[in-house]
């Protein structure tokens, strides 16, 4: 193969960060829900997939992509609220495996429902016209849409950070995650807090699905592959840590990208090799709190 130039390595690094942004966006919802509720949401991939299908449907009935950026997270968030209220809430306090099994089953139900409603074959999802084509980023051409995804991820992260750190409701959420008993004693309705956290987490999943749709089209199984990768990201970052998910997501993207450059066959394995190394050196992940799983 031809020699490696500086530009190629820089472009590859950038491609890794862009890929990482998608992992981050998917994993923060997962991490948020786990960190606050200790619910391992196996249906996260299914919410992501439904987000893409809702976007597809809205566009088919005359909506546009920009409208979907608002409508999809809203609708998926509402759906998430309903799921929490009806299915997850009765399982609190019963051990971590109950909601895990429930969401695992729920993901199958959701995928099957989408197959029934939209068929087993996928649909194309055109990149919005404004964001088509590639732009020169100094070291080579890069798709404009992927740059947009990086920006959108940054906006979501910023909004989430402001919400959790700078609002009084965010304070209650953080307190509730640390010690729900005391928060309850102080007169706060913790179940309402959890409901909203679950809604936000699923809304972000739906948003991520919508953003992924123009990259790869939509298909009922699209949530499956990314779920495995997102779990690696949350484990590496530390279960329940949003900052950890961000760092780990970007790191996983870069590791995949760099491995692709030198040994493309190993790219998929490299994610899991990274996880193994992190788990050996630091079992709780980058920023994980010990004992959250117990």
């Amino acid at each position: 193969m031809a020699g490696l130039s500086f530009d190629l390595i820089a472009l590859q690094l950038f491609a890794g960060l862009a890929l990482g942004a998608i992992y981050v966006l998917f994993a923060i919802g997962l991490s948020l829900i786990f960190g606050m509720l200790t619910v391992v949401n196996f249906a996260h991939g299914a919410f992501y997939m439904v987000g893409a299908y809702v976007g597809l449907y809205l566009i088919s009935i005359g909506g546009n992509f920009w409208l979907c950026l608002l409508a999809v997270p809203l609708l998926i968030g509402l759906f998430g609220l309903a799921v929490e209220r009806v299915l997850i809430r009765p399982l609190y306090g019963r051990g971590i495996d109950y909601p895990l099994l429930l969401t695992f089953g729920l993901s199958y139900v959701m995928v099957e429902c989408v197959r029934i409603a939209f068929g087993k074959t996928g649909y194309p999802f055109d990149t919005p016209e404004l964001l088509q084509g590639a732009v020169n980023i100094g070291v080579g051409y890069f798709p404009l849409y992927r740059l947009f995804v990086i920006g959108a991820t940054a906006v979501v992260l910023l909004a989430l950070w402001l919400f959790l750190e700078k609002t009084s409701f965010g304070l209650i959420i953080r307190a509730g995650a640390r010690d729900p008993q005391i928060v309850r004693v102080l007169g706060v309705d913790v179940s309402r807090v959890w409901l909203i956290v679950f809604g936000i987490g699923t809304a972000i999943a739906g948003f991520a699905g919508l953003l992924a749709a123009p990259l790869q089209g939509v298909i009922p199984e699209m949530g499956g592959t990314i779920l495995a990768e997102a779990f690696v990201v949350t484990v590496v970052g530390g279960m329940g840590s949003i900052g950890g998910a961000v760092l780990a997501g970007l790191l996983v993207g870069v590791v995949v990208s760099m491995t692709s450059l030198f040994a493309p066959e190993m790219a998929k394995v490299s994610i899991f090799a990274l996880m193994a190394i992190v788990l050996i050196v630091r079992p709780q992940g980058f920023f994980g709190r010990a004992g959250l799983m117990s």
Partner: protein
Amino acid sequence: MTKKVTKAGSISRRRLLTTASAGAVLAVSPFRINLLQAQEAPIKIGFPVPLTGPYGAEAQDQVRAGQLAVAQFNDAGGLNGRKAELVVRDDKLNPGEAATRTLELVEKEKVNFVVGSLSAAVQLAINNVTKERGVIFNSISQSDAINEAADFSKYTFHEALNPHMTSGAVGRYAFTKFGKKVAFLTADYAYGHEMVRGFLEVGKEFNIENLGDIRHPLGTTDFSTLLPRLQALKPDILCISNFGRDQQIALKQATDFGIKKSIQIIAPLLSHASRVAAGPQAFEGVVGGCSFFWGIEDKFASTKAFNDAFRKMYDGKLPTDYGALGYGGVRTVLEAVRGAGSVETDKVVAALEALKYDYYKGPQYYRKCDHQSVQSVLVIKSKSKDMKNESDVFEVLSTEEPNEKNLRTCDALGHKS
């Protein structure tokens, strides 16, 4: 008292389950009336294809067209009144699953023949089972290995093209038109490997320069980390040898990266269903091969007849490439049954070997030594403008007529003459 209640409860539940499942089986089977009336069991054709997974779009077309072949056989009176039936199974694109389903088809369903598969690797797993059980298997998916003496048996037939023929036809066209510097992006399994081998072999005649081959696992959803490297190689031609959803995503993302501006993308096979699923943008300008395109109906009466029958059965839809293979695979077997006047394996094998047929795409026949169907290969280009209907997605650039010269020789495959 408590004990009694529990016992009664469990019995009623079991009864409920039995009744429900028996009812379901009866309701699902289209032959429930025949079961009661027919004197003879139907001729059963097992049909394992990957209905779920990345090749699902193509597999569904295989089933549709396979059903058409069965319906035509039955409408024409079957085998002296004995009707045929397609027993479809989902092999999930997994060799283990396919072997289990095929064994089940042979042992439990007692199928007379097996037609199907949609993977270079999975069909070998099916072939292993049918070979051992002495059941005829007509494969409708690409593979080179299935022609080779090691995998071949007298029960093995191959209605689909093989990678050697396909890459040969596409290579002979592309290497004279687009340039000599070629880079490859390849799905890392038998199909991809066989295609690249075929391109490199035909490339020798044209002195092509191989700039590199980047391999990706089956079921990849993001190619963004592979594309900058391919672009940096500065090839004239980027040859993408993957299939189904992998092909859709790879072409879409290559388009996003602006690769088409300076590089001609070719693919050994352009799948009709994938082109429809991915939309015109992603496939625009890509050149590749195929075994069948409905548009050749101007040239062959058999194509016209097949298209019309398919349209009639499926609300005006036109058949796709892999659909046509499903049709061809089932129809050849059923025609051989009629010719042999029996479902006895040896007689049907002899009848298949003797067939000179033109059922959907012009003249074809099974070569004696490896049972490969000798047939034409179309070189096509994806359209994005001037489409007459939703199936008008390709333009036929050239046709390689059926010729044994384009196949590997029987000696090279290890068959003793």
